[in-house]
């Protein structure tokens, strides 16, 4: 019994197609108010490239490969850690009103509802 992953060109295209579609639909639902954290958040997600960097560096057999592999991990780790740090910081700032009753007086329909029902 073995568990190697083997992806042919066509299976790759299917994965790409489904992932792109999922990304389009998921991101399309994010309200404009969160577009900056969204951009840094998606930036964080492609920091997964660090995993590829680790693979490349562990399998490096020459000095040249080691040096380039080192930079792959260094840059990938920076992408992931930095992307997470700024996204987390920004999202922690978004707070609802402390006194929703005070707003209901002139908001009539209610603001919170419009946040959820907002179309992009």
């Amino acid at each position: 019994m073995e568990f190697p992953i083997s992806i042919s060109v066509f299976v790759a295209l299917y994965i790409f197609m489904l992932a792109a579609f999922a990304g389009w639909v998921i991101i399309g639902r994010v309200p404009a108010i969160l577009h900056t954290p969204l951009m840094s958040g998606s930036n964080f997600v492609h920091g997964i490239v660090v995993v590829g960097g680790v693979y490349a560096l562990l399998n490096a057999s020459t000095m040249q490969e080691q040096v380039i592999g080192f930079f792959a991990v260094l840059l990938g780790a920076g992408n992931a850690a930095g992307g997470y740090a700024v996204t987390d910081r920004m999202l922690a700032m978004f707070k609802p009103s402390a006194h929703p009753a005070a707003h209901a007086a002139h908001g009539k329909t209610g603001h919170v509802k419009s946040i959820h029902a907002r179309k992009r």
Partner: protein
Amino acid sequence: MLTLISQLAIGTADLAAAFLFLYGLHRMSSPVTAPSGIFVAGIGMAVAVLASFLYAFGVVPAARANLPVNLGLVVVALVLGGGIAWWGGRKVAMTAMPQMVAIYNGMGGGAAGAIAAVELFGGKAQGDAELIMTLLGALIGAVSMSGSVIAWAKLDGVINKPVRVKGQQAFNGLVMLATLAVGAYIVVASVDKAALILPMPTAIYLFFGCALALGILMTLPIGGADMPVVISIFNAFTGLAVGIEGYVLQNPALMIAGMVVGAAGMLLTLLMARAMNRSVSNVVFTNFGDGAKHKQGKIQGELKPEQPGDAGIEMRYAASVIIVPGFGLAVSQGQGKLFEFVKLLQAGGVSVKFAIHPVAGRMPGQMDVLLAEAGVPYDMIFQLEDINDQFASTDVALVIGANDVVNPAARTDKSSAIFGMPILNADKAKKVMVIKRGEGKGYAGIVNGLFYADNCSMVYGDAQGVLIKMIEAVRGLGLPAVA
């Protein structure tokens, strides 16, 4: 046996990571669940990175002797790269967020390019399809890296003018062709060793050199104000490069994460371009601002200055106020004082809302973040399509450090450079007040007819200073708070 277990563990961890990324991004669809969303995605990342150490049990025979050194290098690189970026991300000012995102994005592109370089120099690609994919990922990753660095330099003010030379587009086209030609040569030479006129390593260096130059040359002529679109494009590029390298490394987690980001970046780019009523190719290939030297339509009326104190008191006695903030507010660091003033108005029973234009700030949504940082609750912040109909029934529209996004010429003047761009209907409010440093023009270099309208008054001064005077004036009234 160990190889078997490590394969199983890595496969499972990466599958979990891919799911957690999608689920985390899904939770970002509301400000309520978004903080937990990034946390979920963070767990996915941690799991995948920890599991990647298990690759040590299945390294290729040639690298086995290097394993202890390589493991050490991995740890050093992770701690160093992750540590510096984390520290930078924790202390960066919210106004500098666009350039920070550009840098992190460039790092991701660079990492994808570096992985491709290891594969190429080591001759690890098996078969033409894999080699072509490696080169494609290398090209996109390298362009994204060098382009992001230029975007950072422009946003940070290191480069403060677009660099434009005659025949630039044609030259860039040539560099693009040269890159593709070197790539094609690498593919041909790897199949037929007899065709070797250039040693392989030299060809690979040349390929990366051309790709990096292309990223720089592409980004140099684009104006600083268009950088948000450019960052979004490069974000999509890095995603694509990561996805493609994921295929080369046979790692579906990289493929999925990369392609999700690629699609997301593409969508954001289109949304932004639409908010400026321009096409993406218009942003990348034409030099905005050059054509704006046409004759202005006749503007009726005159500028009517108003004292900050008077304006503040007028708003205190209004029933409803909508505030239109622009980047000028952030430049003067006035968000905190603005919210203090807003709370004062609210205590007096005035209904206050914020109206945000899609391209307010230096990247989409940045104004929302800056207001949130100052403590403004997100349910007071409204986007263009949700609030635009409410201006007509509002007493005062207060425009602070914004210009083009409230210029009625976008609606009426067909010859205007911004014609057709969706704008906030601040001019439809009963009274418009504009806080502005001087009588200058906006980024598009267009005179704003709104400032000359009968219902508009100008409050000159630095936004923060003006707001302090407004707060003092309203406090000076000594009115009791309304419950």
